């Protein structure tokens, strides 16, 4: 702790933060997991999924973008907030087509894992939007199925900021806002399998698929088959 560091609380636990840190960054360092989908290690914060919503000084904010402040009282795992988070995850499921049993990402998927963590175990009350977007399999090494896209923008930021390429971008507005690629299709971009955006585990769901390696890791031995999402962070505190 330097003399500029300060403390605040999350669900009553004292957390140390450095000036400029977000609530989520400080929480991560302290071993407190706040659910998230659009935020990803090493990428700039976007603040769009809203699954990280917390109450800070009584006001709902996104923990991934909200700066921590000395003495701030943050509520995270209250029943009310957890219910809202679950509702947001349900919205994402219903916005796309998610049929986990036949999905390559099953077991490694953060959306699926988040649904388990938040207790989404009953049928929901929402209708399905059932998108029918064509799958882009033009690239020799990569397939892109945006019917499962949760619009988290992680691929965009990874490609722009880590790969320095700009393979992906958003198009459209509102419910029609979609991920698109910088060309007619993926084959007409400079995307490479070795890109961080493609192979770095950046896509939280099963949209960006590297060809010929599917199911290499058997179901049952995958990331969230072994532990609940967020446990890796929570272990720091044990």
């Amino acid at each position, binding site marked *: 702790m330097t003399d500029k560091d300060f403390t605040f609380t999350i669900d009553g636990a004292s957390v140390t933060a450095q000036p400029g840190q977000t609530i989520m960054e400080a929480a991560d360092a302290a071993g407190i997991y706040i659910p998230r989908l659009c935020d990803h290690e090493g990428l700039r914060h976007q*603040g769009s999924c*809203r699954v990280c919503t917390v109450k800070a000084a009584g006001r709902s904010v996104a923990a991934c973008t909200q700066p921590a402040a000395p003495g701030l009282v943050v509520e995270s795992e209250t029943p009310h907030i957890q219910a809202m988070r679950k*509702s947001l995850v349900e919205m994402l499921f219903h916005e796309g087509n998610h049929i986990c049993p036949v999905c390559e990402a099953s077991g490694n998927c953060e959306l699926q894992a988040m649904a388990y963590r938040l207790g989404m175990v009953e049928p929901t009350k929402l209708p399905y939007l059932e998108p029918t977007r064509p799958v882009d399999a033009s690239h020799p090494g990569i397939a892109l199925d945006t019917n499962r896209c949760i619009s988290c923008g992680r691929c965009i930021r990874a490609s722009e900021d880590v790969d320095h390429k700009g393979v992906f971008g958003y198009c459209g*507005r509102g419910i029609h806002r979609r991920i698109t690629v*910088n060309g007619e299709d993926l084959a007409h971009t400079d995307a490479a399998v070795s890109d961080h955006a493609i192979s770095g585990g950046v896509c939280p769901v099963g949209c960006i698929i590297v060809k010929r390696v599917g199911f290499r890791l058997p179901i049952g031995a995958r990331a969230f088959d072994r532990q609940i999402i967020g446990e890796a962070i929570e272990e720091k505190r044990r």
Partner: protein
Amino acid sequence: MNGQADHQADAIAAVAEEAAAATGHDRHRLLDMLLAIQERCRWIPPAAVERLAASLGLTPVFIRGVASFYSFLSLEPKGKVIIRLCDDIIDRHAGLDAVLAAVTDELGISAGETTADGAVSLEVTPCIGLCDQAPAAMVNDIVLTSLTPETARHAARHLKAGKPLHDLVSPHFAGLTPQQRVHAQVASNIRAPGAVLLGEVPREAGLRRAATMEPRAIIAAIIASGLRGCGGAGFATGRKWEMAAREEASRRVVICNADEGEPGTFKDRVLLTERPHLLFEGMTIAARAIGAAEGILYLRGEYVYLRDHLEAVLAERRAAGLLGHAILGCGGFDFDIRLQLGAGAYVCGEEGALISSCEGLRGEPKTRPPFPVQRGYLGFPTVVNNVETLCHAARILDLGPDWYFAMGTAGSHGTKLFSVSGDCRAPGVYELPYGITVGELLALAGAEDAAAVQVGGPSGVMIGRDSFHRRLGFDDLATGGAIIVFNGSRNILEIVDYYLAFFVHESCGYCTPCRVGNVFLRQAIAKFRHGHASAEDVEELRTLSATIIETSRCGLGTTSPNPVLSTLSHFPLVYAAVTRPAQDGQQASFDIQSAIETARGIARRRSFVYDRDFSQ
């Protein structure tokens, strides 16, 4: 063949290059470039995207991302003329159906289509700020008001025949001054001029005072006047200026928000038409107060018909030494204003989104903090104020804070412009002191049979007769100024459904609750309209609304469920009347009818179990 295509692509690239060069290849002016290309080519062709990308060092997908954000930019070819009929609920109540039928009949196309010869495209669009003369339409850079099936058919025939667009306004269009052209298209409908804005206003009196004052004293005067923002949120204007002035920075910026996108609001249109000098005076005073040399007027794309008029006023002010270097002869008082035209996106009225739009980005709100007064346009401290707010500020400098403070109520000082439309005899703009009751305003507007009033537009609240005693102002019913009147024959759920459709259309799509949640909220209301809802669905409406409000990222999402929540609390019987108890064994919110609709189609017969009249 190929040669011809190449030639065409070259010509398009030349248009794109010219548009880029006109801004000095400044990528922050991308929206201006895209608007110029759209105007010349009637769409944004791939060759233009490629050229802009190469010329500006951006990716094509980024440029398509920006273009696809705005309703008035198109990545597909459009007609030489685009007719955009306002399809707001007010226009529907004013006879839109018959107008639309006449136009589609005359053109032989429906909304969303273009005639085979590429002459005319027909579209519908949300409120274009002409609600007091609905049904209304935009046609390229002009507007048509108070349409009837006959006038609409005549216009469609005229355009189909390729006759000059501007003849629709006046055969002498070219000979009119810019302001005359505006008046030839739109009536200002000032029904009640007040003490501050719409009565007699001496020219430059406030600015002359301000030029002799220290910036700090200007801010102190605005704080003392009690002026609060007129764009909806009601933030104290003087405090906003003070915060921007206090930031360490090499540049500061004043932006006037003339996006006026809230359906039912059109008072800024009237100020821009009738009081443009007062507005620019206010911006110049704000600039002196915070130390800004740059100003931007963000004009909504729907108000393109005001562009030449406003540019002419700006030019006049530059020539008169009221803009530019050493304003009014004061050394170091330098300030100029550029006009940024929008392109059809309600969310761009949100100040962060507005700044994004001015920076050549998708019009998405920005993450706060930092707030615009800290780091706004291009990262510099920026004051964003509504048109009306800035006009008030100029008058306060002239007549003093005490004069202004004395008007209105304890929490809301001065006067306010109200845009009144819908079921009333005298739609138009009313300037009245804060604190007037809804009932008093309705009486002035000739709305005796009002049964419901939407205060503040879709993002505000709908109230019924039992609330007409309530006072307009921040102490009770806060509003940016829209007062939409509905008589007893109007269908409340249809209005709610329209407003939700509006929010779905206008959501930027950035965050989950607003992008997706509003779609589901609208579908939930559809269940009520179809008579498939049970009491449990009312709870569902409330829960979903609460989640959207609490988790959305900007003011669009945090207000979008208001039509539902305010009608639930003020018109509970409307919901009760269409709610049925859940049927045995079925999840109450499960709409079996729509679920089996596809199956009915495939089987080409009705359901044995669920269609009660199956036996007939």
